[in-house]
């Protein structure tokens, strides 16, 4: 199961993800991310991974893509933090290569 909720506040728009980030929901996340990016009116767009229970290989690739597009993340849990760190490293490597 996977769920995406959008929480609007003054300073930011939060995409709260819950459940397992695997296919086919990775596509759904990309769609939600691109539509959430519209009409931000100067606010930040943050993807909240605190309640993600699992990130599969496809999920990692999607997060990397969003990270490359400038997505900001918030998370909890040692594994999610570790995964995000790894992805940030890969993202920096990719930028250097470009």
């Amino acid at each position: 199961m996977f769920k995406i909720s959008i929480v609007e506040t003054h300073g930011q728009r939060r995409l709260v993800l819950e459940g397992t980030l695997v296919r086919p929901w990775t596509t759904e996340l990309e769609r939600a991310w691109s539509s959430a990016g519209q009409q931000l009116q100067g606010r930040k767009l943050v993807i909240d991974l605190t309640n993600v229970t699992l990130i599969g290989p496809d999920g990692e690739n999607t997060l990397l893509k969003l990270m490359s597009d400038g997505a900001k993340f918030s998370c909890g849990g040692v594994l999610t933090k570790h995964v995000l760190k790894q992805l940030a490293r890969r993202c920096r490597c990719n930028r250097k290569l470009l």
Partner: protein
Amino acid sequence: MVTAPTVSPRVEEERYLALLRTANAIATCCDCSGASDTLVEKLREVTPFDCLHLVAFERETNTPAWALLEANGKRIDLTSEHDFSLDDSPIPQAHESGQCVVIADWSRETRFKKYGLFLARLGIRSTCSLPLTRGQRRLGVLSLGRFYPNAYDAEEVRFLELAADQIGLAIDAAVNFYVSQRVQDQLKLILDLTNQLVSNLEFHDVLHAASASVRRVMHCDAAAIMLADAEGTHLRVHALDYPESRGIFTEGSRVPIEGTLPGDSFKSRKPMVVNRLDPTAIPQEMYRKAAAEGLNSFCDVPLVSRNRLLGVLAVARREENAFDDQEVAFLTQVANQVAIGVENAVSYSEIADLKNRLAQEKLYLEDEIRGEMDFEGIVGQSSALRHVLNLVDQVAPSDSTVLLLGETGTGKELIARAIHDRSRRKDRTFVKLNCAAIPTGLLESELFGHERGAFTGAISQKIGRLELADQGSLFLDEVGDIPIEIQPKLLRALQEREFERLGSTRTKKVDVRLVAATNRDLEKMIESREFRSDLYYRLNVFPIRIPPLRERPEDIPLLVRYFAQKYGRRMEKQIESIPAAAMKKLAAWPWPGNIRELENFIERSVILTHGSALQVPVGELGGNGRSAPAPGTQKASEREEIVRILRETNGRVAGPQGAAMRMGIKRTTLISRMKKLAIDPHRLS
């Protein structure tokens, strides 16, 4: 005074011939109306008359069924009101006595006053009422009349009695033909209706087909099927066939059971008929609607199937007095057929709903199992694990049997589920059977199923796992523990794709993809005759060796984080970090129980944790006589893995068939590791 004329022998002969012709003509008629018309037309050649009154009686009830009256060459409409009753005439007397009743002069007759007045208005002075019989059966009465008195003397009566016998025979033949024809027509109509009902299964299709057929079969203007709602207070019009409707009666409308004609029929389980719109006899609402629609006759019959009251079949006609007893009886038969069709459709609808619900529940449960097993998230990035996953990706789309070899706790079930989920069978069932967990005596029954009474305790039929996995995948865990006596039957099921349930002689065909797993050395078991070689070769189509955790130590930190996060969430503990020293210790431990052991250890660690850093009881890792692996052990296992893969790729490092691709790492990384471990690919090839 005018009396009956005497007839010459020549004329007499002509009369007999005419009688014969009349009887023949009547007998060849196909219906009652034709027979009566022929009788009136031909009888004049036999005997002259000024008035003819023919009454046919119902066979069972002995009541008048239909009548015909002709006077002065004109047919008199008997459906309109008359001031006489048939009971007040000589006709019932002739019918009951079986004797001819002659009234020589109606002006002197004191009995049958009203009938006498009626005849007087027609100018009839004398009549002769002749019973029409066939054997002991009384069919009706033929009454002839003349304008003058004393028209029927003894001789004439004798002749007319003879004529009546012949006419009775002829009418009986015609009536029988008509009745059999009518029964045949009705049976054909019921057959047509039944065909309509059985050729549809969808609830609404059945109801619409039934209402349309009933309207056609009954020659009605409107037909409707009403079914009782869940509360039992109303009947809902589920189907209405009324081509000339003015929109007053509509589908979906609700009719109260209390105080309505369909409701009365529903409650009493009896047909209800209204043959005339009478505002004093029927509810106001119904009168208003019926009058607006131009309907005057109604017949409502309850729909009862196997003593289950379903609703009401209602038909209506524009004309008054449209439904007689025969039609109601026929409509009751029609309603019985409709009730069976409706009940079948209701049952089909219930089964379809249940099927859908089961499918939804199955989806939900499969999703739950996926969530529980996390099989999508096989955690690890080591080259050994990537190699295994590559093999999974290669073999999954095929239907080949896969044999998973690996130590306990290495994740064989996870890999088996990954194979199923990447196969074309992923939408069908994944059935698991742990052969070591089932008592030997029950394993055969678990695998192949059994019939009721196959053995003591087989109190009901049971479907085996093999049958359950039809079109899906069957995962036989600990296949090495299958008793040798069951192995031939399993081999046959795998090879021939057929088997028999215990206690059954019926062969069942199945299409199952088998994934087997064991942590035992099957080749050694073959040598010691514990495992059949033919079964081994059947299972060993595509072996996948799952490396133990000690061969992929680089995955340990990731697994530790994964389990720490999983159990932290479950126990509502915020674990933010894992001390580096603890992680180092965990990564160095050989984990003989593999991932299962690591998972349990981390669960224990999370329980012990207070605060945000995982408190690992590292002291436990050195106990129980176990020791941390020698520093060289990790390197040795990594070297072994690289050498093995290089041998398989004939020393090729790069390219699509190279070792780097097989291990899922960069070519440069592999070369760097090879240098570090002093591996020369040229020597290996």
